[in-house]
């Protein structure tokens, strides 16, 4: 399993969490942790997720980008190591 961080930023509206979670669920991606706030109307969410096979990454990536444009929010998915590497020796 590879771990990745999904971040979602955009105008708050109904159905962002549901939309993103549905996409992840449809691809068999497990949500391990999540944190979400509204900062002056802007919705921001970070999720730590587990993806089973490295090969699925591209599909999840494409599906999240598509969901992002449907919802009008920016969605990034990045492998978790990038954040760990930068902050820890």
């Amino acid at each position, binding site marked *: 399993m590879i771990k990745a961080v999904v971040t979602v930023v955009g105008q708050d509206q109904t159905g962002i969490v549901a939309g993103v979670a549905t996409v992840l669920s449809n691809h068999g991606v497990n949500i391990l942790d999540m*944190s979400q706030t509204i900062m002056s109307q802007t919705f921001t969410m970070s999720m730590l997720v587990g993806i089973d096979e490295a090969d699925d990454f591209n599909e999840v990536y494409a599906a999240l980008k598509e969901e992002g444009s449907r919802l009008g929010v920016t969605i990034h998915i990045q*492998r978790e190591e990038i954040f760990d590497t*930068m902050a820890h020796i």
Partner: protein
Amino acid sequence: MDTTQIQETIQMVKEDNFDIRTITMGISLLDTVGGSAEETAKNVYKKVTTYAKNLVAVGQQIEREYGVPITNKRISVTPVSLIAGSADEKEILVLAHALDDAAKEVGVDFIGGYSALVQKGFSHGDLALIKSLPTALTETDVVMSSINVGSSKAGINLDAVKLMGETIKAITDKSDTANSKMVVFANAVEDNPFMAGAFHGVSEPDVVINVGVSGPGVVKRALEQVKGESITTVAETIKKTAFKITRVGQLVGTVAAERLGVPFGIVDLSLAPTPARGDSVAEVLEEIGLEQVGTHGTTAALMLLNDAVKKGGVMASQGVGGLSGAFIPVSEDAGMIDAVKAGTLSLAKLEAMTSVCSVGLDMIAIPGETDATKISAMIADEAAIGVQNNKTTAVRILPTNGAKVGDMVDYGGLLGTAPVMPVVPKSSADFINRGGHVPAPIHSFKN
């Protein structure tokens, strides 16, 4: 899950223009030498296209998975003069074309190593290569060249310095932009992933992955948080930021090397600007406290920046190499361009800055009528700074025909635009025309 770290990383990429500037695959060509230049060229094409066939795809996949842009994928090869010992200046061109074709076939942005190391003297192949440069650099698109004319161990080959001044003029007569693909070095390094100066040194393994990291925007943003604090804090802040940036380079290099099945060489942590605002080394220097780059204090601020970048990077990577430090090209840096236009930054100040930056006089436009010996004299000055101070220095200068001081010349893309800068009118011809060899400095005798 620490959301502050996540936000910090995303901001570095989205707002501060942080990028992995390049993944460069170094490939040795020493086993490609055939009975003729044509045969060697065939072997070169085959080896490069075989070894690097997955480089671009792997780079793009890493970019997607980790969310960090990898701006260029590049190849560096053994200095071509070493595999073309018996070729003449026409025959050697077939090798330039083989490199160009191979690079295009695998889809990389540049291929470096159309190079010669002549700090102590010329071999037959070295002379052929240098004489072929005006044709080679105008007939090919992505081939990059470097010529090393001096080293702290060998001194300065003044004949080569003279020849390179003439060569730069000859290149200008064929193209106003081709000189951006060629650099004249002293103390060239063998594992540099940055262009135009990348080549794969003879002591390197058969194949290796080197990574070049950039990020002046990230350093500037970090310094904005410590306005007015002591210079000690500035140095610490740069070190910490350089550490973080280099860690990303280390990660990307490790993953790329593993996926390509190739050993990982070094991370070159260089603050390499692009013409985009907010991606400028000049702006970092100004953030340290200069009203505009080029004013008094610039050399000191740059010395601190260059040194702190290296210190932060060394701890963050298994192997730091290449040039590592701050690049100060003019055309590729919005802040440098502004300072030249405003009259704050002169060629003389740039020369002083090269004694403490990571390389040298870079991407500087000068009038096309500048005499070849004057260009040679600029190269000699830079080589002297490098040779005497045990550092790499370089000249990538762009005489532009028909342009006068103050005109803007556009080189396109990452190469940017440069204001034509004045040169000192008095002659250096008698000095350069002496030829011969400047002996190595006394401190080179360490055995």
